[in-house]
């Protein structure tokens, strides 16, 4: 699997570099802000910033026919899929690390953030990122990557839709429909993680049935 991971990251290197520059820039923003209102959004964006590039990377795999070539390598199909999901996880963790850097600068800048808002920001960022890849990858595997932008948008909207539904369902507990309630953020993150695990098995199934001509 290590070789496949290496390949995935080499293929995404230029996009990751760009995301790092953007996330690094966003981390510095708290130092020049006069109030903390924008910080939760910055944290969520940073978490999401790295996985959003995976659609383009999957398209490169398809156009270069790498996805056909890798079937000739001494690896099982489920290992190929496993390497993709590990790569997605590492990208999300990279986003989380960048958001932690932002929190460090928030501390340096002297802002006091409400912990509930921080939990919500992480919940939103993680839900969006995890749901995006969980939906995007099996869909692209099934229908191809030609419409990758559309699939990314659809997956992003589905993630927000899931949070809205959860906020509505949790309304009796959270005192009305509150999307920014920490409980909504935490439960939606857990739901997204479950979706991620299901997505892996669905992708393995699709890949086993898929023909690479």
């Amino acid at each position, binding site marked *: 699997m290590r070789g496949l991971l290496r390949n995935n990251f080499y293929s995404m290197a230029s996009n990751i570099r760009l995301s790092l520059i953007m996330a690094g820039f966003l981390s510095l923003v708290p130092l020049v802000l006069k109030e903390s209102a924008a910080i939760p959004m910055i944290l969520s964006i940073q978490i999401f910033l790295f996985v959003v590039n995976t659609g383009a990377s999957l398209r490169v795999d398809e156009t*270069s026919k790498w996805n056909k070539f890798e079937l000739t390598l001494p690896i099982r*199909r489920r290992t190929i899929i496993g390497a993709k999901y590990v790569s997605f996880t590492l990208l999300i963790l990279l986003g989380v690390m960048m958001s932690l850097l932002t929190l460090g600068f928030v501390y340096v800048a002297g802002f006091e953030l409400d912990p509930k808002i921080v939990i919500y920001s992480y919940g939103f960022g993680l839900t969006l990122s995890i749901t995006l890849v969980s939906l995007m990858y099996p869909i692209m595997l099934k229908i191809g990557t030609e419409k990758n932008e559309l699939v990314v948008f659809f997956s992003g909207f589905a993630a927000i839709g899931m949070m809205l539904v959860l906020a509505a369902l949790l309304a009796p507990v959270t005192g009305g429909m509150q999307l920014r309630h920490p409980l909504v953020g935490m439960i939606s993150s857990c739901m997204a993680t479950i979706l991620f695990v299901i997505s892996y098995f669905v992708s393995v199934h699709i890949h086993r049935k898929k023909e690479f001509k």
Partner: protein
Amino acid sequence: MNYCLEVKNLSTAYAGSHFHLDNVSFSVPQGSIMGFVGENGAGKTTTFSSILNTIRRDSGKIEIFGEEMTDEQPDIRNHIGVVFDAINFPGDLTADKLAAVFKDIYQKWDDDLFQNLIRRLQVPAHIKVKDLSRGMTMKLATAVAMSHGAKLLLLDEATSGLDPVVREEMLDLFLEFVEDEEHSILMSSHITSDLEKIADYITFIHNGRIILTEKKDTLLYKYGIARCKSEQFQIVDKLEYLAYRKRGLQIEMLISDKAKFAKKHREIIIDDITIDEIMLLLVKGDQ
């Protein structure tokens, strides 16, 4: 005789297409190069894809080194090198990065051999695949296929679109590869002159069916093309030719034993034949 690849009664159909492989059977003897010849759409790439399990097959058996290659037994793929008629590798990778990737994938990746091969083939190590010419990309793919201890190379149109100089370099490499008689190559190509230079056996495929498998030397030295007029053609028995076609006033017959045919029909001109002409007569001619 030991075979490194045996394809038995392979049948494959594509959904939404009339094309299918029909009972394809052939074997590649160990230590040999087999040329796989056919017109566009004859089924060469489909056969390769079936051998490599990148598409499903409806029936038949494929054995590589005596074993069926399934997804659950990927180790056998350590012994196979593959070059497709495509880019093969992600565009953002360089030869050096590819080496790092394959070092972690193949059990017996030989980095020194890979570096020697790309130096010999003059493939730049630090230029991205997407910036390489087609010739360079194919050379790179060949270097990868030969650098992990593969005993069988599957080359699907690996030399097509390359200039004669590059093709010559590649053919030399392939000949060196089979020198020890343990390594084998199955190579599809439109360029039959390449196969005439290096192949030991030629298999012809047409409309998804194998129409002939024969030793190359037999094809070139025993087979022939007999040219005659219509009235001479009338006296030739159907069993004496494999295929024929009319060209103007002349009739051309593909014959499998020109010496025997010449003895019987002294008045008919018999010429040596090329792989191209055999393919044309088998594909375009009547039986």
